[in-house]
């Protein structure tokens, strides 16, 4: 147990937090899928404002996709593998810095423009929920520290592929080694911790739309037919007729019901 070698704070931040975050994130995802299909949406605001969105959203999203790809390459894939295919550490670093800065730049600019748009245009502002604000703050910190981490590592001083990357892989193979994170630059540390929070937040926020990329559309028949009350690809039937079960996402609320009847009883 490598955990024992690390300090308490370090264990909390780098061993406990990740598993709590993953448990909440994955559990939340399942829970949301089971209970709130209706709320599972990208909640687009393009109808309300499209001129800034046109550039901001595209920059942000493609930047994020590139950044995720970069993280997979830098964190999940061990250094020995990339070296085995002939990619030297120096070459990898140039690739990581150039790719990271351009992707990061797209994300930062896109995110800033999206935030500007959300504040500047009252139509977009009214659609902003409290959960959105929380999400934007956490996401903003994650993006800022990520960009900063890329920039301070231009001289290749952090060697995160020998510390942060193995740390993540140890987490995923259920053998956490928090000490790997202890000597790392504080920007990297902050980035890692914030991102764990982001994972925990994910299923409860609008970010959930990332889990429904509709790739099935490519193979689907253009016109979709469905029997009344039926549902494609959903849970199977539990009711007498054997027809597909069409269970709702929004159970009725006992908490709101008395309020309703009170309201209805009020004379206008």
């Amino acid at each position, binding site marked *: 147990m490598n955990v024992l070698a690390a300090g308490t704070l370090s264990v909390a931040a780098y061993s406990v937090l990740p598993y709590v975050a993953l448990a909440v994130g994955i559990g939340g995802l399942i829970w949301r899928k089971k209970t709130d299909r209706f*709320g599972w949406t990208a909640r687009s605001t393009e109808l309300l404002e499209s001129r800034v969105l046109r550039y901001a959203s595209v920059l942000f999203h493609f930047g994020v996709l590139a950044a995720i790809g970069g993280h997979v390459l830098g964190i999940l894939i061990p250094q020995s593998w990339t070296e085995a295919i002939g990619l030297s550490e120096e070459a990898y670093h140039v690739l990581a810095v150039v790719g990271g800065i351009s992707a990061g730049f797209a994300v930062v600019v896109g995110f800033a423009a999206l935030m500007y748009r959300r504040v500047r245009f009252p139509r977009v502002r009214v659609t902003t929920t409290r959960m959105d604000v929380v999400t934007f703050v956490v996401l903003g910190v994650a993006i800022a520290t990520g960009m900063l981490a890329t920039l301070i590592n231009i001289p290749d001083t952090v060697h995160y592929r020998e510390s942060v990357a193995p740390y993540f892989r140890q987490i995923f193979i259920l053998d956490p080694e928090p000490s790997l994170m202890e000597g790392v630059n504080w920007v990297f540390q902050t980035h890692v911790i914030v991102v764990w929070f982001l994972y925990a937040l994910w299923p409860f926020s609008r970010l959930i739309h990332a889990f429904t990329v509709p790739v099935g559309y490519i193979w689907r028949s253009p016109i979709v037919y469905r029997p009344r009350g039926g549902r494609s690809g959903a849970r199977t039937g539990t009711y007498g007729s054997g027809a597909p079960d069409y269970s709702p996402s929004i159970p009725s609320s006992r908490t709101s019901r008395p309020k309703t009847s009170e309201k209805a009883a009020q004379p206008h």
Partner: protein
Amino acid sequence: MKVRAQMGMVMNLDKCIGCHTCSVTCKNVWTNRRGTEYVWFNNVETKPGRGYPVDYEDQSKWNGGWELDRKGRLKLKAGGSLKKLANIFYNPDLPDLDDYYDPWTYDYDKLISSPSSDQQPVARPKSQVTGKNLDLQWGPNWEDDLAGSAEHAAFDPNFKNIQEEVRQGFEDTFMIYLPRICEHCINPSCVASCPSGAMYKREEDGIVLVDQEACRSWRFCVSGCPYKKVYFNWNTGKAEKCNFCFPRIEAGMPTICSETCVGRLRHLGVVLIDTDRVEAAASVADEKDLLDAQLDLMLDPDDPEVRAQALRDGIPSDWLDAASNSPVYAMAKKWRIALPLHPEYRTLPMVWYVPPLSPLESVGAGLIREGGDEENIFAAIDQMRIPIDYLASILAAGDTAPVRLSLERLVAMRRYMRDVNLGDPVRPEIASEAGMEPHELEEMFRMVAIADYDDRYVIPQRHGEVSRDAFVDQGSCGIDFANGAPVPGMGEMTGFDDPDPYGGALACASNGTAAPESGALAVEEPDPDFDIRNLLSRHGGPRPLKEGGDA
């Protein structure tokens, strides 16, 4: 042959007086909620005009509907699935809210709460989205009765294809009312545009619906529909559309727009469609052949072979009887007086229109009364105040022949019935000149002029007893989906000042159910301890999206 039943509607434009009763009743039933203030599942446009949303008919701008590629294959005008996925972060074809209009109400309270002053208090328009003051530049029915047509009407996309000089001088002014709902197309491009597969056609009746649980806010349906009859609820982030009042239709009742139509101009019925040939019909090379191709899909419900196949395909026999008596089949196919709206979009729309004849009467009145010969009738149709080319560009992909045929038959019906009603000798040759039998003209007269309730609406009820366990439907409340259907008080600014704008929507939650979909009457097992609406990031529940004060 694979037979499916398809609900359809015919609107007799000859009788539309543009009173907007259909729009208002529809609005009150379906879109009187936060997020849908700007949405009119049913609207009535004055043509010529730019329409709602602005210039929706101009597909070079919006890329709605289908087109044929170079090899003659049917494809979405806005591009295939890969292009859609590449554009998922920004849909280049999506209308802006301002293309519809920024919905507003007035701060009426100012009129009575203002302190005394030298000036009259004024109720200013306030946006129903942001609560801010609006400087009104455009709105619903901004062009009603040709208002502002001197400025706007020339932009009507239907003028593009008209060869003759556009007649817009004061003495040549013409107009028609065009009530529009979702076309519930046989080949719906909105359904094909939806990346999530959330949009679907119901197998039983062809009604096109959005599964509110599967919609993920990708919004390609909105741009994919050439009629712009799928709307985006900006509050829930979900698409919504005219659902043909399916809870009423299932009970054998007409849609609310039809039921309340003052002019009794709407007809509802079932047609039998051969779904095996839909793609071929929508792919015919010449746009002008689309009407015939679509009529060819509509099977003769009295043909024993069709009936046998329909029964094999699970269509109940009372639905076949309804198809036999269908006013839609009669007007569209038997008599060919009803035409589809913009067949050139290749969606095979199922809301049909009888072209307006009324203005012809001023020119051709003498002919009808004195019984001019056939040539004179043709001449009169060409002198119609509404240019036949204009009607053809709306109803027949620019082909005047079907419009002319329809108008000729409507004139023939009047000439023939005039004799009948005055007790003059009946002239069967009037019918044969129009290519019909005398008894057909009489049936037609009964349908379009008498228009009895039972003739207008031939709606078979759904067969709940075979489709599912009825017990689970007990107490369900069809129109209360998601964040609730009707909001208290028409015109009320929901979301502002009202601590519980969804209060009205929850009224039927008292029986313990709330259906989540603008689709089927949903079933649920209520869980007393759980209310997703109060959690997380979305608002569908008692808490308003944002208090007006912040906006």
